[in-house]
């Protein structure tokens, strides 16, 4: 029942309310989304000349427990000191306007030995102060092996933090998989978008992330310069092809991952358990190396250890088997 002055009054009122809300929404998004992560160009970044790589005597090592390298202003690569744990795991802290994503939490639980939370908190506090905004920390994992979540507990009581969880079901639910591993999902950190897909083979809950801003393709433990331990050859084969298809559809600047186990000599790895790796090759990998892995999927037909220039494939054999002398 219309009792206002004209039949148009409610329509005008409705338009005014909607326009005001849209204007408010726009103003809010401009004020809180100060950073633009333009996916149309590859954001620049740099890797260090060399990573801190342990020492001849682990006991005399006085390097930081966690090496922090700023690839660029919003992309941090962390490495666990190899003198603390031979895994020398790489971890990633990636910032968007609303969230920061921590991928993996290293191989050492003790905060006294490996103060990952302290280091991450400091990076986040500095980033928030510099950019005038606050972020929720997402604690995620590339896959569910203990050397990737040993320090997970350090984040359990952290405020403004979401723990993805360490079961297959929690991982799939968080990322939104309804068809793992084939599905490609978009994940938004707040203006900075990632493509997430499943990459089982090394471990059955593994994921890969492609950063549309830096064009870095994060491949976890299923593809790195080292011993690629494969529990499920068929799954890994499809995962490698999935990564190749992703790289066909999106520009990839570098492939990044979690460990360095190869030396600079083609096909030669450091002995298992090395806490000192002088003259390490870079951690990042190239698309040519991914093509080498694609080639391997055509060549390998049975379990065994297969040597390639930049990685070794330990196909469905006990992990204790080694090429070490």
């Amino acid at each position, binding site marked *: 029942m219309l*009792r206002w002055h004209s039949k148009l009054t409610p329509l005008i009122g409705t338009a005014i*309310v*909607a326009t005001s809300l849209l204007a408010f929404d726009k103003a809010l998004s401009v004020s809180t989304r100060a950073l633009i992560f333009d996916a149309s160009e590859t954001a620049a970044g740099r890797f260090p000349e060399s990573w801190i790589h342990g020492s001849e005597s682990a006991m005399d090592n006085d390097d930081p427990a966690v090496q922090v390298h700023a690839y660029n202003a919003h992309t941090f690569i962390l490495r666990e000191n190899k003198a603390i744990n031979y895994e020398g795991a790489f971890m990633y802290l990636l910032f968007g306007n609303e969230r920061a994503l921590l991928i993996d939490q290293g191989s050492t*639980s*003790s905060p006294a030995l490996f103060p990952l939370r302290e280091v991450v908190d400091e990076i986040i506090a500095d980033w928030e102060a510099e950019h005038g905004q606050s972020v929720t920390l997402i604690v995620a994992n590339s896959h569910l092996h*203990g050397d990737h979540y040993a320090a997970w507990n350090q984040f359990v009581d952290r405020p403004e933090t979401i723990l993805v969880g360490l079961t297959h079901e*929690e991982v799939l639910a968080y990322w939104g998989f309804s068809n793992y591993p084939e599905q490609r999902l978009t994940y938004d950190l707040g203006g900075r978008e990632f493509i997430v897909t499943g990459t089982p083979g090394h471990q059955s809950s593994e994921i890969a992330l492609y950063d549309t801003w830096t064009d870095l393709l994060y491949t976890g*433990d299923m593809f790195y310069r080292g011993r690629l331990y494969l529990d499920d050859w068929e799954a890994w084969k499809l995962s490698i092809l999935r990564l190749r298809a992703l790289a066909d559809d999106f520009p990839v600047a570098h492939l990044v991952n979690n460990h360095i186990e190869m030396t600079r000599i083609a096909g030669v790895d450091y002995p298992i358990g090395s806490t000192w790796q002088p003259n390490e090759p870079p951690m990042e990998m190239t698309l040519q190396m991914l093509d080498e892995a694609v080639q391997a999927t055509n060549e390998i037909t049975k379990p065994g250890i297969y040597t390639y220039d930049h990685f070794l494939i330990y196909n469905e054999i006990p*992990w204790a088997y080694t090429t070490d002398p």
Partner: protein
Amino acid sequence: MLLRYAHIVVLIITLSVTSGAMGHMLNMTHIDVKIDSSAQGSLTLNIDLGQSLISPEAYWDAANQLNSEAHPQIRYALAKLEQALQVTVGESPIFLERHSVSLQADSLSAVTNPLIPQMTTIRYDFQVQKPSPNVRVSLNPTLTVPWPCLVRLDLAGQPLPMSRVITDETRVADFAPDQGTLGPVDQLVSKWAGLAPQAIWVAIGFQHILPLGLDHMLFVLGLFFLAGGWRVLLLQVTCFTIAHSVTLALSTLKWIAVPTNIVEPLIALSIVYIALDNLYSTHLARWRLAVITVFGLLHGMGFAAVLSDIGLPKEGFINALALFNIGVELGQLTVLLLAFMLVGWWRKQGWYQASIAQPATVAIAGTGLYWFIKRAAF
């Protein structure tokens, strides 16, 4: 100087610890706890005994016995484990009854090598006296196992398992929700879950109206602000409820599927329509009831999309769905009750339409239009 010395000691300790856990920590310990809807529970412990509590030789010897469980070293290891392992549900400690012990042992060299994990699987059964979502699993400091120890909890009524890590430093896996960080509704949910695990779905359904379902809330308020008495309101709400219950069930059962990018803008548009219709109608037309029914079908699909994000449990699927729907209805009724308490007293006053109902309805229509533009265009 003292600090330097401490650094060396720490590294020596670390190296001695890590040397037993090489190779991407394959032999880490796992504890899986399951509690079903009939309060029956099981705990499965996977542990590399030959690399922790007993020698590889003793382990190999036990594994080759007909009754491994009776081997003195295994009995010693089990006693040590059972003394250190504690589970509480709510406030009550749980009595674990050992069900089975199974030793994996490929060869003595495999048992000796930490890179070839040879895991022992020990299963316990238990009965929960007072169901509660607050579950605690702890290992006391007398026990050292291959760390970290991943604890998984599958609780009846919870759509997803939960995980925690026990480490040498943190001996407790606490699944109790931190009440300090929960809002009042989540605290209520947590409390209900303790009283009756399935009742959590009523609370989740309720939350999807109040406070999370702002669009559904505005639609119901749109119905509330139509001129007319309680009979008018009751008729509209009944049509809406029946319709959205139907599509909620059909969508959740995957018998129908409409993409959310179509449903969500239409839900927004339904709010605009209902609100504008309030402003131009003098009474409840029959066709309005038909339109509300159609809109109810849309809103049901919206609820179903939210529900699919949460995921209903496989066990008790239909019950959970029905309880979720009851929660939605309760949320709806609460919105109407609150609206009545705030402004409904004056429904019969001459100034009510011009001063309350019409401005509120314009605000509802404007908000619906804003959502429509946002959902359709971005």
